[in-house]
Each structure stands twice: as C-alpha cells, then as structure tokens.
C-alpha cells in the first residue's frame, strides 16, 4: 500500500487521465465561484488568470474531467 500511495503522490508519474481530472475539478469550482462574483460566466482568459493555468490547459483538463473513468482509476478508487 505504501508503494501505491507513493506512486499516486509523485505527480509526474501519475497517469494523465487522473491528474487532469483533478485539475478539472478545480476548474469547475473556480468557474462557479467567478460566475457568482461577476454575474456572468467568465471568459477563458479570466478563468486561466484566476487559476494560474494556460487557456489550453483548461480546455484539455475540462475535457478529461468529462470522460468516463478509466479502468485504471476504478481499480484505485
């Protein structure tokens, strides 16, 4: 189990599907927050600025968060 936890915490060796999904969740929260604050949905640059990510990273992570879980993750969770 220690082995597995180390594998999960070491960011670089984590599978893309998992890591992007975590970023995807942060994006969703921040987007809701900004929408409330501004009274409209943020533009992609406004969101990127608030999250210190590039607009392209946001697009990629948002998509990954939307996809069904891979078998890989189901086993771990």
């Amino acid at each position, binding site marked *: 189990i220690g082995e597995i936890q180390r594998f999960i915490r070491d960011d670089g060796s984590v599978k893309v599907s998992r890591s992007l999904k975590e970023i995807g969740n942060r994006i969703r929260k921040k987007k809701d927050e900004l929408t409330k604050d501004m*009274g409209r949905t*943020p533009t*992609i640059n*406004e969101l990127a600025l608030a999250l210190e990510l590039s607009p392209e990273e946001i*697009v990629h992570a948002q*998509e990954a968060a*939307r996809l069904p879980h891979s078998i890989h993750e189901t086993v771990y969770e």
Partner: protein
Amino acid sequence: MSNTMTVEFSSISSNESFARVTVAAFVSQLDPTMDELTEIKTVVSEAVTNAIIHGYNDQHDKKILISCTLNDDEVELIIQDDGVGIDNIDEAIQPLFTSKPELERSGMGFTIMENFMDKVEIISNPDQGTTIKLIKQFKKSKTLCN
C-alpha cells in the same frame, strides 16, 4: 489577418473528444466566455458524431476534416466527411428526425447546431459526403468587469 487551422483525423469515436479540445483550444484565442466555448464544443460533438455514425456507418478507417478560421470576433467552422451523404436535407434538419431510431439517437443534432450557432449551412448529396459550415459571433464586450 485571419488565423486558420485544419485538422483531419480517423473516424474513431474516441476522437470526438480530441476534436472538441482542438477546436476549443484554437477558438480560445478569441477569449470567448466559458458558455460560448461549451456551445462550440457541443456543436463539434454533434457534427463529428453524425459523420461517424451516419456518414461512415461506424467504419473506423475513414477521415473527418475540421477547418476553423478566426476573424475578429467570429469563428467559422467547417466539418466534413466523405460518407454516404444526406438524401433529403429538409427532412434531416427537422427536430426529432433521425434515420437511426434503433440507436436511440435524439434527432436533435441539427437543431442544437442551429440554436448555438449564428449560421448553419449543410452541403450534402448521396455518396458525395457531407459538409457543415457554421459561423458563430462572440459577444464583443464583456464589459461588466473592466
């Protein structure tokens, strides 16, 4: 000066997601709102799914072409397949019309495109494939927060 990209990819359903990211990343250069971006991605999904399941009847070795041009606050999107084509376009665009009810299709693909885009043009003939041209204008001022 306008900025253009063209992407061609295999008619595999996992590429639908790739197509969404590619178009959304390109269009992001115009700084759309997240809602506008979602609309664009939904339209890409609908058109790419149509190309795969209707145009190519789920054959995986075919190609789908998307081309995207940015002009000021407008995006032009062209989605093209070389599949079976559409016999009766007027019928195809009717809300709820689907030629594949057995697949539990909603028949709302073209209706969604017309709702989310400012202009939709369908060029299609039996055995000559299908080309969908779409234009969307982004709202200029996101004034509230300046």
